[in-house]
């Protein structure tokens, strides 16, 4: 069965595999390019934008740019009561607070009573919490989801952006970044 006629038919049989190989190569390229997660934050070194958020829950004043330029470095944590990983990182936030970090919160798309309930359940490490109803500040500082935590120095400049919940192994690193920001 190897006369010239059949040869081209046989060659055609390998075509599907070849095309599939092209598809896999193409797609692998697409997947293995650095995902946005791995791209270093574009916000590092940029100042926090001007903003002023009203308080969202009793016992905590609102958050404004002026509060971030008082000379003390701090963590700014973007969270929401309806966000499960935010609950998961609560112990780490408490740990950071106990180690001396000051933590301010930006509550996005949330309601006062839900935030209060969230804090009652998960602990409250926040000094100030701003009410970011429509995610305006969240977007302005380059945050794309919750939770995210920013290390901001005493002059209001962003020094580090941590995307996702804070795992126990991340806490020492954040403390170090905070210390760096203070120098």
């Amino acid at each position, binding site marked *: 069965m190897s006369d010239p*006629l*059949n040869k*081209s038919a046989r060659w055609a049989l390998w075509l599907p595999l070849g095309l599939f190989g092209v598809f896999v190569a193409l797609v692998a390229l697409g997947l293995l390019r650095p995902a*946005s997660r791995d791209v270093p934050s*574009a916000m590092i070194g940029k100042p926090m934008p001007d903003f002023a958020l009203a308080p969202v829950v009793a016992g905590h004043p609102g958050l404004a740019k002026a509060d971030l330029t008082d000379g003390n470095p701090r963590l700014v944590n973007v969270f929401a009561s309806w966000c499960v990983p935010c609950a998961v990182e609560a112990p780490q936030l408490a740990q950071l607070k106990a180690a001396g970090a000051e933590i301010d919160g930006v509550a996005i798309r949330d309601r006062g009573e839900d935030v209060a309930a969230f804090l009652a359940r998960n602990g409250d490490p926040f000094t100030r919490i701003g009410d970011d109803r429509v*995610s*305006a500040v969240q*977007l302005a500082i380059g945050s*794309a989801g919750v939770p995210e935590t920013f290390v901001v120095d005493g002059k209001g400049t962003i020094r580090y952006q941590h995307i996702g919940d804070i795992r126990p192994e991340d806490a020492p690193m954040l403390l170090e970044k905070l210390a760096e920001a203070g120098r």
Partner: protein
Amino acid sequence: MKAKHQRLVLVAIALVALIGAGLLAAWALRNQASYFYVPSDIVTKPPEPGRAVRLGGMVEKGSLKTAPDGVTIAFIVGDGKARVPVRFSGIVPSLFTEGSGVVAEGRLAPGGTFVADTLLAKHDEKYVPRELQAMTEAQKRKAVADTK
């Protein structure tokens, strides 16, 4: 016809059809694929008026105006470097707001206004545009990134 011939003929027909389809697809894609523009691109290298494209950027604060008919809006989309006026008739998606990101599908009208057929807003559960992720740093700061 001989059996061997028949199989060869069938394979040949299939190949010709598939290759033809492929070429046709390539030609059609060149003409019909909808390219993505940020405002700076639209201003410096505008698409032909009437060609279906997409425009993405940030809705400028204070630019949103509603026409008397109650369903047409005009606003300005910017990326920190350029601004493009947009007009849209329809019910705006939830979470479309000034100061937030948007992707508009439509065409550039001869006067320089972008006429949008569809609007897609950030956090819109219906569509989360990925293109905005790859913008330059300055644009990224102002524009909208993909979410979880």
